[in-house]
């Protein structure tokens, strides 16, 4: 039988050994998983989010990384669908990522956010952060909000608010506004926002249309409907083919005196496809290359091969805000606790080329300025190989653009 002293000696030696192993072990690297749509129909957008996130993180690595190690950047292809995303989130967590970044598609964002929430409930002390760089659905900040999800992108009320304000100031809004949107949560968010602003800017919503998503080949009947309603302007949250084909049909119908206010006209290829019909139309977006510093634009171009376009400026700012928060937390080479990073992120602010951005505590939405731009030939960076580009008209300040926290968001703080 072992004496008590022997036991305590062995235990003491064991502890000493354990501490020696711990101190000689390498610093724990921060692992970031980019779970994006890298194959399938949304690849072009998914690639942009991945590129933007990687750009910022690699900058940090160039300056010595984080927590004494290089940040490990892992890429996962979610195939653009929720079941693929569910599988890859689990894979990423099994690989030990601390942070998951994802952007394209609100449906996928909902899946990733929920999976992260459930994982965190079940694995206290081993939590994961979700950085949403693209999902704009209000629901993500509403009943699906949770402490470990951060939303770095704008939403329908932010885009519509900025659009109506600036178009009204420019005298292009008129008092008859037509709303045409896609029949799902994003389109409904848009329509709701358009109707909500009517009194403030003194317009009448002459008609609202919700159409099938990405299925319509010819928008001529819808354009005929628009024509008969005789609006001064049309506001639409359409994106991808639905915007492209809508603009084409408009150009063919000779509705050039109607101004379009859009959320996604800056998606690559839209202006080229719309042709001269695009002139004078508006877009409200989180970033416009014309307003960015030349130094950043050129650096981005040299690292990624293209100018920061479409969703990229916004995503870069979001991830930069995240790295700003990282600077505030020092784990001294030890274990990474994402709860501390989340707390720091709530307090972080970033001075961007457009103004200051920060996270609000209520729903973890980024309070950020929104730029309203107009298609014009008077630009430094023409797009799509045309002579047209996006001329910034006004930057709507963060305080003016932001919407109020939804009641449905009940965030439980750790």
């Amino acid at each position, binding site marked *: 039988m072992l004496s008590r002293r022997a036991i305590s000696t062995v235990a003491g030696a064991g502890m000493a050994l354990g501490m020696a192993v711990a101190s000689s072990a390498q610093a724990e690297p921060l692992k970031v998983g980019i779970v994006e749509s890298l*194959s399938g129909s949304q690849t072009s957008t998914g690639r942009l989010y991945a590129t933007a996130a990687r750009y910022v993180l690699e900058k940090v690595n160039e300056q010595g990384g984080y927590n004494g190690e290089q940040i490990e950047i892992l890429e996962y292809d979610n195939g653009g669908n*929720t*079941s693929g995303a569910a599988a890859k989130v689990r*894979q990423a967590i*099994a690989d030990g990522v601390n942070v998951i970044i994802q952007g394209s598609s609100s*449906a996928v964002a909902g899946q990733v956010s929920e999976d992260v929430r459930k994982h965190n409930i079940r*694995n206290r002390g081993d939590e994961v952060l979700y950085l949403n760089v693209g999902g704009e659905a209000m629901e993500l900040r509403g009943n699906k909000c949770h402490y470990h999800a951060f939303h770095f992108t704008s939403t329908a009320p932010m885009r519509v608010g900025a659009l109506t304000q600036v178009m009204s100031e420019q005298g292009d809004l008129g008092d008859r506004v037509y709303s045409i949107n896609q029949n799902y*949560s994003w389109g409904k968010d848009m329509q709701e926002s358009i109707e909500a602003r009517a009194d403030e800017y003194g317009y009448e919503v002459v008609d609202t249309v919700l159409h099938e998503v990405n299925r319509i080949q010819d928008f001529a009947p819808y354009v005929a409907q628009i024509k008969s309603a005789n609006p001064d302007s049309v506001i639409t949250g359409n994106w991808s083919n639905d915007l492209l084909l809508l603009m084409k049909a408009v150009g063919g119908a000779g509705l050039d005196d109607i101004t379009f206010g859009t959320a996604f006209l800056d998606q690559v290829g839209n202006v080229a496809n719309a042709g001269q019909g695009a002139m004078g139309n508006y877009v409200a977006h989180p970033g416009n290359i014309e307003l960015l510093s030349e130094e950043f634009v050129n650096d981005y171009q040299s690292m990624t091969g293209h100018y920061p376009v479409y969703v990229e400026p916004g995503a870069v700012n979001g991830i930069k805000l995240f790295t700003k928060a990282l600077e505030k937390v020092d784990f001294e080479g030890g274990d990474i606790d994402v709860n501390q990073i989340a707390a720091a992120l709530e307090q972080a602010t970033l001075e961007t080329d457009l103004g200051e951005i920060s996270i609000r505590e209520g729903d973890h939405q980024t309070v950020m300025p929104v730029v309203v731009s107009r298609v014009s030939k008077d630009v430094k960076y023409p797009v799509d190989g045309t002579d047209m580009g996006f001329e910034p008209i006004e930057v709507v300040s963060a305080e003016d653009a932001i919407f109020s926290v939804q009641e449905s968001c009940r965030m439980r703080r750790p």
Partner: protein
Amino acid sequence: MRYKLPLIALLMVALVAVPPLFGGGVQYALVNALIASLFAAAFNLLMGQGGMLSFGHAAYFGIGAFAVLHLMQAVEYGGLGVPTVLLPLAGGVAGLTGGLFAGYFATMRAGVYFSLVTLALAELLYSLAPHWEGIFGGEAGLSSMRMPFMGLNFGTTLEVYYLTLVWVVLCLVILYAYTRTPFGRLTQALRDNAQRIRYMGYNAHATKVVVFAISTTFAGIAGGLMAISSETANYSIFSTHISAEVVLYTFVGGSTVFFGPIIGASIFTLFGFVVSGATNAWLLYQGLIFVLVMLYAPSGIGGLIQAHIDQRHRLPWARLPLPYAVLAGGGVLISLAAVFFIQSVEHVFSNRYQTVVTRTGEWPDYHLLGASWDPLSPVTWLVSLVLLVPGVIIVRKAMARIHELWEDQGADVYESETAPAAGGGH
């Protein structure tokens, strides 16, 4: 029959003992493989045994998933006392109900018309679901959380794996037993000659509806297991992609053998899991495998295995291993050629590589298969050819030799013995 039992027992032991050795990602992939296996087996009851090719089986898979999610929500929020382990039953009931209803209409017609009706019904759900918030939760779908039951909280993927394993094995046993019953025989007769069934005094339409409903019941259970595993579902579960996938699994695995679709589903699910992490061109590889199997082994992987089992007493086993090994070697060469070519093209035309080219004006070397290659050198592109030509020659010779050996023994040569690339490791 005698060789089957130990084999199945061994497989069961492996299925129980091996997964804890892997991480959560692999376990989740295994869960998906199990679910896909059950879905494919349920589909094949209709396709392989009943001779009815459904292009819309995603509908019943999805209905099962949504039914289980509604029940899960009732348990989570309403305090309904349904234990987590029994939840998949709701999927089965939903699949059965949907199948009886849809089957009544679909089975009025046979052949391509049947396929089109099933496709239309699934499309109907696909376009309806995003707008029917109450039932399908809009385009975001429904989500819920697994509740603890009898000390098990079903929080880890491993617990979900075992739950899925029990259900899938149970269902597969039932499905297999079904093929042995008189009604199972009737199902096969339905495939071979529906007219004759009628002459024998059976009601062909009613029989078809029942077979259809049994198939959709198990598809619904598979969907329910999916809902439990991912704790969410949205309208995309009804997409043609899911319906097409199960057809693909069944054809590659072989619809004439009970275990064929299960083999096909497992291989493709795990293939997707492994290869999608390595290359973005994984769908191309999946398509290539499908084409090769259809061309050189139309009865599928299961069909090949079955052919060997059927002829086991006549085959010259002692003389077969050498030509089979040679064939596999040739297959490896061809696979390497294909992988080298596709990966080279993917790499050189990728965004990242092209960025470097536009920035520096040079085409730098790239790394593949443990060596670095110059994309502008003809040597690089000859590598594929150098691998491909001998590979094809070896495969052809080996195939001829294998045919010879089979025919020597008077064994019936199946349409073809082996897919050339089946031996290769993509």
